[in-house]
């Protein structure tokens, strides 16, 4: 049922963009009530909130973050840095309600770590946060669909 909803929603994306109205239109196509948006959007919203909250913690030290990242690359610090990322990713997916127990677990965790770091680096360049937000949402949406 979720797959059908996803396919129906994708048909409306060219007209409505990566928005909840595309999902609502898709839901109407497959005879689901508009509240079906929650089926797809609930988890994405939570992932989005988790990542943006985590990145917001960086705001006060943004100017010094590149230096921090360089320090993370040192051989003795890499282990701690990797552990910190994996703990964050683990929390984010648990919060978003992930219950996978197969290889998709690894795809989701690796993918979120990559997305989080990429967005983090992008935000360092003072780009407007709004466009990042919507890119983030469609990246996460693709994880939930796998």
């Amino acid at each position, binding site marked *: 049922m979720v797959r059908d909803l996803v396919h129906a929603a994708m048909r409306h994306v060219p007209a409505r963009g990566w928005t909840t109205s595309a999902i609502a239109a898709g839901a109407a196509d497959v005879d689901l009530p508009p509240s079906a948006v929650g089926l797809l959007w609930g988890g994405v919203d939570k992932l989005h909130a988790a990542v943006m909250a985590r990145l917001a913690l960086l705001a006060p030290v943004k100017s010094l973050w590149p230096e921090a990242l360089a320090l993370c690359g040192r051989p003795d610090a890499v282990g701690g840095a990797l552990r910190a990322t994996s703990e964050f990713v683990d929390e984010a997916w648990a919060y978003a309600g*992930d*219950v*996978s*127990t197969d*290889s998709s*677990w690894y795809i989701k*965790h690796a993918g979120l770590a990559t997305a989080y770091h990429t967005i983090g680096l992008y935000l360092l360049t003072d780009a407007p946060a709004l466009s990042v937000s919507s890119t983030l949402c469609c990246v996460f949406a693709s994880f939930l669909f796998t």
Partner: protein
Amino acid sequence: MLRVDHAGELGARRIYAGQLAVLGRHPVAGPLLREMAAQEAVHLAAFDDLLPRRRVRPTVLTPVWSVAGYALGVGTALLGVRGAMACTVAVETVIAGHYNDQVRTLLGEGYEAEAPLRATLRQFRDEEMEHKETGLANEAEQAFAYRGLSKVIEGGCRAAIFLSERV
């Protein structure tokens, strides 16, 4: 601990799937295998539920066990009903022993709060031993090369447990 149990039940379910693919229509073995497979499915569902709740990551080898289990099921079933039963006996021997070890660990210090998990593992262990008895009752020991087959399968299971604990 839970990671290995999950991997084990996944493997068991795939073994039965493989065996049913070959022996599904056998008048005696078919229903028997289906019944045991149904119980393993319940076990797997329990671990599928426990893993995310306890934030345990699944073993990275799930696709490997999935394929290997199915191949083992098909291979032993092609040796006939006795072969399939011999496989069941070998696998259940290792799994029941493994659950026993885990229950023993959970009876140790610091695990007082784990009574529900202990009870679950005990129940699963008892059901696995039932499967083993079923296998033995169905002439497993008369299977072609029973001794050799058992040793190989038991060795494979132990290797799978070793790897799933670590990876």
